[in-house]
C-alpha cells in the first residue's frame, strides 16, 4: 500500500447518513459508521437490525435511498458492483457461496484478479504465478491438501473457509464477512478466529456475527445495530455492560 501518512489516519470506510427504505420501512436509518485501517470491526444486533443490509449497501447489492459510503475516497453508492470489488471490497455471503461443480483450486483461481473481462478470461493462462498464489491461499485457509477436491464434497466449515479464501485471492483492502462461523464446530471456530487474526494484517475487516465468544476473540471494536441505527459502539466489555444493549437483547 502506498498510503501517505495523513491518509492512514482517515477511516478506510466512512458511512454517513446512510438510509435505505423498502416500501417505507427503513431497514437502515441515517447510519454513521467509520472503519479504520487494519481494524477488525464486528457488527452485532438482534435479527432484523439491518446488519446484512449494511453489507449489501456497501458492496452495491442494494442501492441506498440516501447517504454516502466513502471507501478510500471513492463514493461506492454510485458504483457498479464489479467496480466496487475491483476497488478493493470483498464480501462473503451468509450461506457459503462457492462453485460446487468446480474443484477447490478452480474456485480460488476464479477469484484471481486477472482475466476479469471477456477476452481476458478467454485467453487466461494458468501460469506459475497463479498456481503459487492459489496454493498459498489454500494453505492459509487449511485446504492446502484438498486442492483437487470438488467443492461440494467439502464440509460446511471448509466451504466457509473456501469462500473466505476466494476473497483473499482478490487481496481486498476491506473484507466483509457475514456470519463466518455459522454452522461451524468448536474446533473450526477456534481455527477461524486464528485465520481472521492472520488475514486482518494489512487490511480492514468488517464481520457480522452472533457468536459472542467468537466476537470477543476477534473484535477490536463492536458496533451494535438496532432497528437500522447504531445503538452502541466501543469495546466488547463496554458494549456488553451497556444497559440499552442489554435491554434490546433481553427484551427480545
Amino acid at each position, binding site marked *: 500500500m502506498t498510503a501517505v501518512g495523513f491518509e492512514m489516519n482517515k477511516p478506510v470506510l466512512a458511512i454517513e447518513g446512510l438510509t435505505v427504505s423498502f416500501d417505507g420501512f427503513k431497514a437502515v436509518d441515517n447510519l454513521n459508521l467509520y472503519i479504520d485501517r487494519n481494524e477488525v470491526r464486528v457488527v452485532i444486533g438482534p435479527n432484523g437490525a439491518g446488519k446484512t443490509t449494511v453489507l449489501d449497501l456497501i*458492496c452495491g*447489492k442494494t442501492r441506498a435511498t440516501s447517504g454516502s459510503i466513502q471507501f478510500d475516497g471513492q463514493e461506492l453508492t454510485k458504483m*457498479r*458492483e*464489479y467496480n466496487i*470489488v*475491483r476497488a478493493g471490497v*470483498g*464480501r462473503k*455471503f451468509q450461506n457459503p*457461496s*462457492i*462453485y*460446487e*461443480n*468446480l474443484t477447490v483450486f*478452480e474456485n480460488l*483461481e*476464479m*477469484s484471481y*484478479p486477472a*482475466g*476479469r*473481462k*471477456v477476452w481476458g*478470461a*478467454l*485467453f*487466461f493462462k494458468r501460469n506459475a504465478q497463479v498456481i503459487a498464489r492459489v496454493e498459498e491461499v489454500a494453505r492459509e485457509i487449511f485446504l492446502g491438501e484438498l486442492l483437487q477436491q470438488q467443492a461440494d464434497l467439502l464440509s460446511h466449515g471448509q466451504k466457509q473457509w473456501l*469462500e473466505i479464501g*476466494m476473497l483473499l485471492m*482478490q487481496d481486498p483492502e476491506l473484507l466483509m464477512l457475514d456470519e463466518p462461523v455459522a454452522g461451524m464446530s468448536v474446533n473450526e471456530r477456534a481455527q477461524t478466529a486464528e485465520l481472521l487474526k492472520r488475514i486482518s494484517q494489512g487490511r480492514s475487516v468488517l464481520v457480522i456475527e452472533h457468536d459472542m465468544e467468537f466476537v470477543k476473540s476477534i473484535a477490536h471494536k463492536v458496533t451494535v445495530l438496532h432497528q437500522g441505527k447504531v445503538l452502541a459502539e466501543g469495546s466488547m466489555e463496554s458494549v456488553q455492560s451497556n444497559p440499552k444493549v442489554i435491554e434490546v437483547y433481553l427484551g427480545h
Partner: protein
Amino acid sequence: MKALDKLLGGQQNLIGIVLLALLILVVFPLTLDAFRLNMVGKYLTYAFVAVGLVLCWGYGGILSLGQGVFFGVGGYCMAMFLKLEASDPQSTKIQSTPGIPDFMDWNQITELPWLWQPFHSFGFTVVAVVAVPVLLAFIIGMALFKRRVGDVYFSIVTQAIALILTVLIVGQQGLTGGVNGITDLKTLLGWDLRTDSAKLILYFINAGLLFGCIFIGRFILASKLGRLLMAMRDKEERVRFSGYDVASFKIFVFCVAAAFSAIGGAMFALQVGFMSPSFVGIVPSIEMVIFAAVGGRMSLLGAVYGALLVNYGKTYFSESFPELWLYLMGGLFIAVVMYFPNGLAGLWDSHGRQALARLLRRQPPMKAVAPVVKPKTESKILETQP
C-alpha cells in the same frame, strides 16, 4: 501440442470426436444416396444451433427460445445473395422490371430496395451472415442482460422476438418474399448448387464448419471463461461480487450461439435452396432447444447426435404418421426433462461407459489386474468405474 490436446479435450473426448467425424465424413457419404445425404446435411445445419445452445443454455444457463431468429437471419442473408444472382436480367426478362427478384416484381416493386443492394457482393454477404445476427444478439443481450433480465423472462422475450420477426418477414412481402420465403436459389458465383456433386461438396463444407464450431466451443469451455459460465449459472451473485461484469459474459456467449446458428442458417439456404419464415418462428426455435436437450445440453457432441436423431425421427414419423409427430415431439421433450435431463450424452456417461468397461473387463483378467501395462485409452475407461 499441448494446446491441441486442450482443444480436443483429452483422450476421452478425442475418441468422441473421431467417432463423430467417422460417422459424418465417412459412414454417411458412403452409405446414403444423394437425396438422403442432402437430408443429413440439412439436419446438420440445425446441429449448429444445438451446439450454440449447449454453450449458452447448458453451460451459461441462458435458455434462448429464439435461436431460429439467428438461424433465419443468417439464412436470409445468404438467400438474398443467391436470389440476386438467380435474378439476372436475362432470366427475369419476362418481368415488368427485369433484374429484381421475382417476388418483388409480383409486389409491384420496380427498384431493388436499399436493404438488398449490398447483397450483390459475396464478400459482404459472407461477413453479413455472421455479423448481422451477432449484432442483433448483441443488442438483445445489452438490452436484457445489462438490466438483469434473466431466466424465464429472458426466454419469454426471445420467444416474442422470434414471433415479431416472423410477423415482420411475412408482412413485408415485397422485401422478404413473405410467407413463401426466398425460393428458387440456383447458383453460387456461377456454380450450380442443384447438382449432386455440388450438394456433396456443400455437405463436406457444412461438416467442416460444424467441426470448426465444435472446436471453438471446446476452446471456450476449456478456458477460464467456460468455468465462469458454469459458475455464473450456479452462483451468479458470487461471480458478480468477485469482480466480474456478469452481463458482458452472458452477452458474449449469447453472441457466439447466435453466430453458430447463423452459419447453420446460411448453410441451410445453400444446401436446401430456399429460406422461409417457417425456420424463424417460435416452433422451430423450440425444436432447436429439443435437439440440444435430447442430445445432452452439456455436451457439444451430444447436440449433434440430438439434431440428427430428432430430425431423423421427424422425417420418419411425419412421412408415416404426420398427425402424430407433434405429440411425439412434445412427449420426447417432457421425457428428456423428467427422466434423463442430461440427454443422450448423460445416458452414455452413466450407462454406456460402464457397459463398455464391463465388456472390457470380460477380456482376459491380466488386463484388469495389471493397469500399468494397459494402453492408456483402456485405463481411462476403467478408471471411471465406481
